[in-house]
């Protein structure tokens, strides 16, 4: 079995219980009283309508979930399809929606706890809020420590709940009285217009199914199990809600149904006072229902806190939030910061909004509905943009009707919410947008499928669309990443100057890495023990780098890498950090230290990006010489020269060495070359004779000579010491050797001028 398969341990039943367990807590145990009071017996229809809206969205979630079984759920799909602006909104919406929902579940827990235990009133907090705060604190603590739920506890809880509810339903069936259901004012005492506002209220009872998608990466056979679990759990709870709520209303007249603990009250009435000799049956049943309610609300809250950590993780992965939030606790191996922050929000919501359970329920629903609407739009974008990676195992029926219907129904339901919840949610959306522009835009590297789609059709689409897309595009990737491999404080300034000039010219960023090589033979013992010293050295080196980069006003990030592998680590770091250019010192050849030549050879033959290797310590840039005979690497030389010309105002001279008699054709070639590379204003020099000697002779008068590697793998050979590059060795002037990987184009390799 592969690792990936080992990590998948949730079967269909587990997945289903996550969905049902999260949903059932709210719908049955908390809301029927409040909702019935607002709509009358017709509230049963409200639950069914809620179930239908959830089902349409469940189909879309299933398609997206099977296409991308990744931690994060809705946020992830939206970020991928609509880009990070909407990703930020979705992430914030999902996260806050879960925090509101958790606060709501905690209040529900508090309501039933207050039935059991007398709770005090403290300051402006009523007993229910106190109960909710206790519950919230416990759930957060459990998730913080990661105390293990014994395997399958969730499953057991859900089965206990379902059995309790079945017994309840049977008892209720016998106690059911249609006259009680209808009451004195008929089925719709407030008219049918009350149906949808009540749906808006009870929709929170359907929020659990999407949580299955947030743990999709842990599902066995997600292609099959995910849709069955999501669609199945929505179907099952809708039926349960319809039956149980009708039954409760047929037992207790709707105006009398308890607003706090409806199930306990209905059980008290539904069960006979005594069965044969056994007395107190009704009270016992009510007590069991109360326990059931506590279990149900607890498992809902727990699952929501857990899911919110998943969303934070996914957002951190895309750099929409700082990864600080996702730090894992050293002892408990839990994402404790994320859990604490979510916990803090839950407590704030309980304290300030906990008196009105409707606000919590609806705010959770509005935020989730916004996310669902975006998700449906995202699905359409994936389908229309025809992304090859998008290959769902499950596809929604009746495309595009289903996702359009899902988006319309979701937003439509929002319209039936009250002003306060809409305002709260709008506030969070605005915060998310502000957050994106202030923080995330400069960090994230994710472009959505949508912006690619627009970008690729710039000509066909109206200008406004293209401009709008550009205006919100992330600028984390707008420019290239220039990675500097620092090892020596003496070359730091020169390397950063080059990198800074390049980054500024191309609107990129600098990533300064200090690769601390720990030689195999000597420093094993001291490597880790000297960590403190290494850190100090690194810090001063990287601080100097920061200061130098600031002179160019380019963003700089720094990193210390402790490694045994020297130059290989440079290649690795370039790959993992998606560097576009690596700047390193010629002294970096000391990295090689004779190890693993075979691998190194392979590595250097397959450069991950452009490489610039500087020989020289002090750069006093006034004029640069670029000898060229064409070719890929001298394209790179030209780019560097152009960058230096624009940013530090150096004079650029181009040199082409030809055989005697070919001066004129050489001059034509160089002129064309200069024009092609945007260096038409550079001085052109044509010389005859031996190339290396000429460079040596002329180079002396310049402050820097930029030489393109004339053959592939040159760098590798220099690094391994198998080639002495005369120009570098003999010239006192600093030399910058450039090599551009040619592997990306076979044609260039075959026909390029070498």
């Amino acid at each position, binding site marked *: 079995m592969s690792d990936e398969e080992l990590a998948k341990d949730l079967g269909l039943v587990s997945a289903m219980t996550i969905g049902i367990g999260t949903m059932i807590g709210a719908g049955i145990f908390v809301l029927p009283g409040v909702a019935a009071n607002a709509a009358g017996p017709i509230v049963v229809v409200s639950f069914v309508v809620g179930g239908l809206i959830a089902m349409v969205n469940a189909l879309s979630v299933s398609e997206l979930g099977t296409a991308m079984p990744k931690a994060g759920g809705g946020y992830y799909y939206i970020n991928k399809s609509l880009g990070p602006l909407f990703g930020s909104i979705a992430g914030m919406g999902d996260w806050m929606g879960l925090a509101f929902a958790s606060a709501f579940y905690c209040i529900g827990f508090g309501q039933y706890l207050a039935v059991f235990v007398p709770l005090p009133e403290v300051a402006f907090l009523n007993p229910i809020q106190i109960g909710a705060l206790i519950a919230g604190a416990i759930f957060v603590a459990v998730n913080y420590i990661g105390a293990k739920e014994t*395997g*399958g506890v969730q499953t057991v809880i859900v089965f206990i709940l379902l059995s309790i509810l079945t017994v309840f339903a049977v008892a209720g069936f016998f106690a059911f009285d249609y006259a009680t259901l209808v009451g004195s004012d008929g089925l719709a005492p407030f008219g049918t217009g009350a149906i949808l506002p009540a749906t808006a209220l009870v929709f929170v009872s359907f929020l659990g199914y999407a949580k299955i998608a947030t743990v999709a990466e*842990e599902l066995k056979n997600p292609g099959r199990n995910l849709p069955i679990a999501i669609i199945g759990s929505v179907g099952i709870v809708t039926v349960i809600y319809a039956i149980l709520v009708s039954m409760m209303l047929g037992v207790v007249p709707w105006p009398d149904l308890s607003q706090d603990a409806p199930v306990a009250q209905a059980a008290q009435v539904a069960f006979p006072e005594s069965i044969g000799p056994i007395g107190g049956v009704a009270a016992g049943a009510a007590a069991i229902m109360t326990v059931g309610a506590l279990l149900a609300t607890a498992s809902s809250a727990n*699952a929501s806190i857990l899911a919110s950590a998943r969303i934070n*993780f996914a957002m951190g992965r895309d750099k929409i939030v700082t990864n600080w939030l996702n730090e894992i606790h050293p002892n408990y191996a839990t994402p404790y910061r994320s859990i604490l922050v979510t916990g803090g929000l839950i407590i704030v919501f309980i304290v300030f909004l906990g008196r009105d359970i409707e606000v919590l329920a609806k705010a959770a629903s509005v935020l989730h509905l916004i996310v669902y609407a975006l998700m449906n739009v995202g699905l359409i974008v994936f389908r229309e943009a025809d992304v090859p990676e998008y290959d769902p195992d499950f596809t929604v029926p009746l495309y595009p009707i289903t996702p359009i219907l899902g988006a319309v129904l979701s937003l439509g339901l929002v319209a039936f919410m009250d002003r306060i919840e809409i305002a709260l949610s709008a506030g969070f959306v605005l915060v998310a947008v502000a957050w994106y522009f202030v923080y995330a835009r400069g960090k994230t590297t994710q472009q959505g499928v949508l912006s690619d789609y627009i970008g690729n059709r710039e000509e066909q689409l109206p200008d406004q669309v293209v401009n709008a897309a550009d205006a919100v595009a992330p600028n984390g990737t707008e420019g290239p990443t220039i990675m500097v491999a620092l090892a020596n404080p003496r070359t730091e300034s020169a390397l950063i100057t080059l990198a800074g000039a390049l980054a500024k010219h191309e609107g990129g960023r600098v990533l300064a890495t200090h690769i601390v090589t720990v030689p195999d033979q000597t420093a094993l*013992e001291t490597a*880790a*023990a000297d960590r403190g010293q290494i850190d100090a050295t690194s810090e001063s080196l990287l601080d100097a780098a920061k200061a130098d980069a600031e002179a160019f006003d380019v963003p700089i990030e720094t990193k210390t890498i402790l490694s045994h*592998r020297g130059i290989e680590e440079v290649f690795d770091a370039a790959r993992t950090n998606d560097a576009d250019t690596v700047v390193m010192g010629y002294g970096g050849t000391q990295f090689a230290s004779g190890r693993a030549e075979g691998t190194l050879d392979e590595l250097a033959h397959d450069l991950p990006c452009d490489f610039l290797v500087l020989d020289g310590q002090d750069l006093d840039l006034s004029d640069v010489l670029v000898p060229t005979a064409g070719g890929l690497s001298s394209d790179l030389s030209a780019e560097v020269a152009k960058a230096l010309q624009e940013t530090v105002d150096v004079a650029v001279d181009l040199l082409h060495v030809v055989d005697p008699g070919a001066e004129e054709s050489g001059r034509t070639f160089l002129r064309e070359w200069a024009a092609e590379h945007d260096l038409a204003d550079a001085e052109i020099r044509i010389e005859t004779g031996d190339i290396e000697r000429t460079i040596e002779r002329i180079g002396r008068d310049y402050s820097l000579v930029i030489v393109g590697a004339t053959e592939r793998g040159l760098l590798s050979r220099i690094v391994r010491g198998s080639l002495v590059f005369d120009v570098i060795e003999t010239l006192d002037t600093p030399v910058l050797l450039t090599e551009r990987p040619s592997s990306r184009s076979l044609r260039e390799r075959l026909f390029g001028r070498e």
Partner: protein
Amino acid sequence: MNSSTNETTTDILAHVLLPVGNEDDALATATALEPYEPEQVTALHVVEKGEGVPDKTPVEQSEELAAESYAAVRTVFPDADDRTAYARDVVEAIFDAAEEVGASAIAYRSRGGGRLMQFLSGDLSLKLVTNAEVPVIALPQADSKE
């Protein structure tokens, strides 16, 4: 090889299985083991699984943690192998891994924590030393940063 005392018996340091939790823990554990010059080291990270319930930490994040831990171990033992196990029962997973890689011993550093915390997180030290089929080396706490 560190076998001057008894040439005939199996060398306890022939192949040490090194369970590590995170980057700092891995570095401290490896550094603590380093003076004893084990011949071969396999770093092990156990990703705690819910087996039926969602995990407390996203799997992808746990795997990142594992990779960082292995890298930390390699700063001390460059040739160390690594192995990732997925299980609800961490200690059982350590034993299984020890058997699968043919480890001569399991070396670990207690992560400390009070009685309550050890109880809640299921005192691994106790289970490790009582049920093991190979020798278990408890490494000294010296100069760790905890």
